[in-house]
């Protein structure tokens, strides 16, 4: 692609990105990273496609209802770009699987729907010293930030306590909006271009059509990273 040049396209081709979840956020992120040419996409989900998913989970369609999301997502991504490697895995992301799922990843995309598993990914990102591209959505609201271990606050610094578990409907367009922020961040990170959404939390209010950002800071008392400094390379 002219925008990135051969060198940029090679960087994307050599990269491995782990996408945690093939739902609302995972769908647009995976679709765009696939057509962007990210060489290896590892995607994990433990769910089955339901009709109610189809307003936002664009990896899946009417004929996928009842199929495992991992299978449906794998088929869709391979159809979009047969030149990349897609490892779509039917798995629950937990303490027993997270290491093997992220083993070869250069970055992790948070496309989850709960904070306990997000905290798990946060700790793995810190341990592996790789970025975590965070996104969260509810209704017409969304948030996103890019976490670079040692350089930015970690997810636990920003959200030390999880909100209560509640089920809120999500507008598909919100997943698209926040998913595109995440995919753009992955792209810039892999190409070493531009300024990342680092040390800033982006807030999107679709109903008010407002994008805001707030400065976020490391928490020296953070139980996951203790506000640690960048690792020495």
């Amino acid at each position: 692609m002219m925008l990135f040049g051969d060198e940029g396209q090679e960087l994307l081709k050599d990269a491995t990105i782990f996408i945690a979840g093939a739902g609302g956020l995972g769908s647009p992120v995976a679709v765009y990273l696939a057509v962007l040419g990210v060489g290896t996409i590892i995607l994990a989900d433990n769910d089955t496609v339901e009709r109610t998913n189809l307003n936002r989970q664009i990896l899946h369609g009417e004929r996928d209802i009842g199929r495992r999301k991992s299978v449906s997502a794998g088929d869709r991504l391979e159809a979009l770009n047969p030149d990349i490697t897609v490892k779509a895995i039917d798995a629950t992301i937990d303490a027993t699987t997270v290491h093997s799922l992220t083993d070869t990843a250069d970055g992790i995309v948070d496309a989850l729907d709960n904070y306990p598993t997000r905290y798990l990914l946060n700790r793995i990102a810190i341990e592996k010293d790789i970025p975590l591209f965070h996104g969260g959505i509810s209704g017409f609201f969304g948030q996103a930030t890019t976490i670079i271990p040692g350089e930015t606050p970690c997810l636990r610094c920003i959200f030390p306590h999880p909100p209560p578990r509640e089920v809120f409907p999500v507008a598909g367009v919100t997943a698209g909006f926040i998913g595109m922020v995440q995919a753009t961040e992955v792209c810039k990170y892999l190409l070493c271009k531009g300024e990342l959404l680092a040390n800033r939390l982006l807030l999107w209010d679709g109903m008010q059509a407002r994008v805001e950002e707030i400065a976020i800071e490391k928490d020296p008392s953070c139980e996951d990273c203790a506000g640690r400094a960048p690792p020495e390379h």
Partner: protein
Amino acid sequence: MKVKLRFFARFGELLGNSLCIEGREGMSVAGLVREAAAGNKAGYDAIFDETGAFRNFVIVMRNKKRIRSQDADLIYISEGDEIAVFPPVAGG
């Protein structure tokens, strides 16, 4: 003194997205939010616990800088302040 109070996400749905409030001298950030939410039980309960303290996941900003919610009773509003209160959103 005039203070702008903004609620995001679920809080905004319950309490309104943006309110212009006539604050009083010596009023704390927490006091301002409590007063603004007092007329709406669901909104108040979403933000505050039974002791009147911010729930531990609630994020409070003053003039786009985060303040610790546990300090919000000791931080006082000033003319023109913008206070923002929001929950992390969890869906994905």
